[in-house]
């Protein structure tokens, strides 16, 4: 069985937000709704460097749905609209979603966003249509610095699995116990 995941190398991330804006355009998302988000690590303001002049840092880290192994959103969705495919991709069934916001409230990562106009929850689906065609997700393809590596984490020969196996990667909030499929690389 496949288990899709993404490794994001923050040593290569320049914080340009091509992944975030490009995804927004490609998915024709409503104004103001983005499936990704950029944070400047340890900084309250995006792009505000941390540290003391001239010894500063500005580490860009992009966030998106973690496509958890045990997703809280799927577990708690009252209408069974938050679904998980066998390959690990978590997606919203818009046919039944009532936009109650429980997925957003229970997600340890604050990922689902509410599309007010449609009254539905909205979040990254790892471009499952592209994945089903054998392509990589849009954010992975479009990253100008090739900071994102997509692959089957169950395939030991995939680059993503190798990076995870190297022990150099980390996941966000592992204590939440949901088993994210998103891994980060870099200091």
């Amino acid at each position: 069985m496949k288990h899709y995941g993404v490794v994001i190398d923050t040593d290569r991330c320049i914080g340009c937000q091509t992944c975030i804006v490009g995804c927004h355009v490609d998915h024709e998302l409503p104004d103001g709704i983005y499936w990704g988000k950029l944070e400047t690590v340890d900084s309250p303001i995006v792009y505000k460097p941390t540290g003391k002049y001239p010894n500063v840092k500005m580490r860009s880290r992009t966030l998106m749905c973690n496509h958890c192994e045990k997703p809280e959103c799927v577990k708690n969705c009252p209408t069974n609209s938050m679904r998980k495919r066998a390959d690990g991709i978590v997606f919203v069934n818009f046919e039944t979603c009532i936009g109650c916001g429980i997925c957003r409230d229970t997600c340890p990562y604050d990922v689902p966003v509410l599309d007010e106009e449609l009254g539905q929850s909205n979040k990254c689906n790892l471009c499952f249509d592209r994945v089903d065609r054998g392509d990589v997700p849009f954010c992975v393809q479009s990253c100008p610095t090739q900071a994102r590596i997509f692959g089957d984490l169950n395939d030991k020969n995939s680059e993503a699995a190798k990076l995870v196996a190297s022990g150099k990667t980390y996941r966000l909030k592992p204590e939440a116990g949901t088993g994210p499929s998103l891994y980060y690389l870099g200091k």
Partner: protein
Amino acid sequence: MDKLTRRTFLKGSIAAATVGMLSDNVLAQMYSASSPEADRLGKTFRTVCTVNCTSRCNLNCHVQGGKILSVTPTPLPGRPDYSNACLRGMSLPLKTVSEDRVKYPMLRVGERGEGRFKRISWTEAFDLITEKIKESQARYGKKSVGFFVMTGNLAKFAWDSPFRFARTIEGTSFSPEAIMSDHGASMGMDLVYGQKRGSHDSRDYMKSKTLIVWGRNVADTHTSEMRFYLNARKNGTKIIVIDPRFSSTAAVADQWIPIKPGADTALALGMMNYIIGKNLHDKEWLLKNSCSPLLIKDSDGQYLRIGDEFCVIDEKGKVVPAGTQGVTARLEGKAEYNGEKCTTSFSLLEADLKQYTLKWTAEATGISEDVIKDLIKDYLKKPSAIRMGQGMQRVYNAHSPFRTVATLAAVCGYIGVSGGGASHAGGTSGVNPIPGVNVPVFNSAPWSDTGGSKASEMPGIKLYDMVEKADPYKIDFLWIASSSFLNQSPDSNRVINEVFPKLSFIVHSDPYWTSTAQYADLVLPATNMFENWDIFDKTPWFMLQQPMLRPAGESKSDIQIFSGVAERLGKGEFWNRTDEEWLRVYLEGSKHPAMEGFSWNKFVEEGIFARKDGRFDIVNAFTDQKYKTKTGRFEFYSERLKPVGHQLPVYTPLLEDPKGPLGKKYPLMFIQYHDRTNVHTQHIGIPAIHGVFKEPWVEISSKDANKRGIKDGDNVKVFNDRGYCVVKALVSEGIMPGVIAIPQGWTPEYFVEGHHQNLTHLTINPVEMLVSESNFAAYDNLVEVVKA
């Protein structure tokens, strides 16, 4: 229903199924199948992005139902690693179909700047322009009709149409590079290399021990190249960024060295003095490839010549022509020839550099002596590279920084060397010369033919004086194409209050409602790169733009706009082709072997053509150590500049120097920078980008902010005697104290008040005019900042 977009809604055909009964996999696959990329009725077009960052990415545009739904990167023939598209290129299609477009010819009905216009027909517009051109011609002569272009669209025919039209009617055209603040780079390169560009392939940095990215934010301004820098870094290359602000590039580098604006020349001079003083310079390279051994006459500072030949001192101390067989020239020394005392140019350089001690350099640059010494140590690890950036040349005496930094690379023997180099261009351009072929690659003759008429070609930097003071002659009618001139040119208050009022008529042709349009008398709707035929020559490829969307409103291509006026001025015979015909004549008429196998239909289908003589491996400039300078060598000594004291690379303080009298009133140095939101003005306000970048800000150091009681998010007023703007503050540890920075390109409506170009100035520098053309010193401004 149109609120429901493709990924967020299940299509009707699938909705009919009882989804509750389906497994998650089947359900998801049905969503998949409903995605327009799978069932696309439309087509994928390849195009090239011709806004002026330095990338010119080849883009795949997925078109359906009259809209570009998505833009994806596309691999290039021969360079599968060069597949790129950025957030700006992906978002521009949204502006293409937005209300920001000029859709019809619009005639001003209110005052200039008031923004009141009425729609007129193209016939009325063409007639009016014709009448106004004739009026100005009658009053002030043919040259009084001027055409100004910036880099809003660099596609061949869009860019060239205004220049060609100026030639057709014997008007005036303006060079844009200096007024857009990039000409110092060309001048510096030209002085030492004998050519304005000399690209060093970014892939080659894998071989560099150290890469100094000097005054350049590659990540945001040449995004497509950034991956190669990161590859090099991963491979062990130490990347050092020299910049007054901690840029996106500095954030992923090994080291950031903050420097005072305008002090790059000082740093390079100090480094050279130290290196030569410690005898660590590459004597062999300098002797062989640079002007170093050539003799300069003490009397007049000109090169000594015997006949046509430059001269050296041979091993016996005798003056001989440099080309003498078997001669071993001396790097240093003095000699006499026919009673004329002479010194080698290297000795002159060495002696002159002595004033730039480490202590002096540290003071001038704001960089500690220890950091400078470490930088030198890193740079001396052979080979090491420098990527120069225009950031360092946006100051008074703009020809100096590139010239001096390149000379530093020469002193270390790094020019034309793999893993070395000092240039501002990354490389994809390369061809294998085909011996004996002397025909042009493109059939440019028909486009060049305007019946023998010529334009008066003037420096763009003279435009203000020409309009205001008829210096050297009057410009009375101005056509601004592919440029939001007002937003991107120096001293907006001067433009609005002194330049524009002295123009009888202003035409502005552009796809978008720019801030310049508000001051035009007639605004014409131009098509953009998704709507018209055009090409871009990005050797070893050329790339096609073709209409994949219907033109907004009644937009016309730049070619067709000028054709309409040409016809009325009796010049229709030179402007009588459709856009497609112009392209085909230009391409299909070529007799060059590089075009072997070219077929128009295939080109339209594929959108790109790889030249038959194209090279896709790493191509670096000057590997043959041939230079197009007068001496045929790398030339740090310019005899032409002796009369103004710039014969050797020289440091001069900023025009607006914080240590000078103006610094008491305005203590902060104001610079601009390119951020990731926009190239220039084209991408401002696109909702997809706007959702993550709301407005410009001023970056101010915590030291300067604390002194003024300024906190993050405060509105602050930035001002000097020329004007002001009010903008939000970002209090940062990532900018040198004494410097503030505002991202360029943002238009007035995104400022709380005013605009950053109110703070800048156009000051013509006679030394730069002697070199070539004075550069807009965009980063040479003093200001004060207070809480608004």
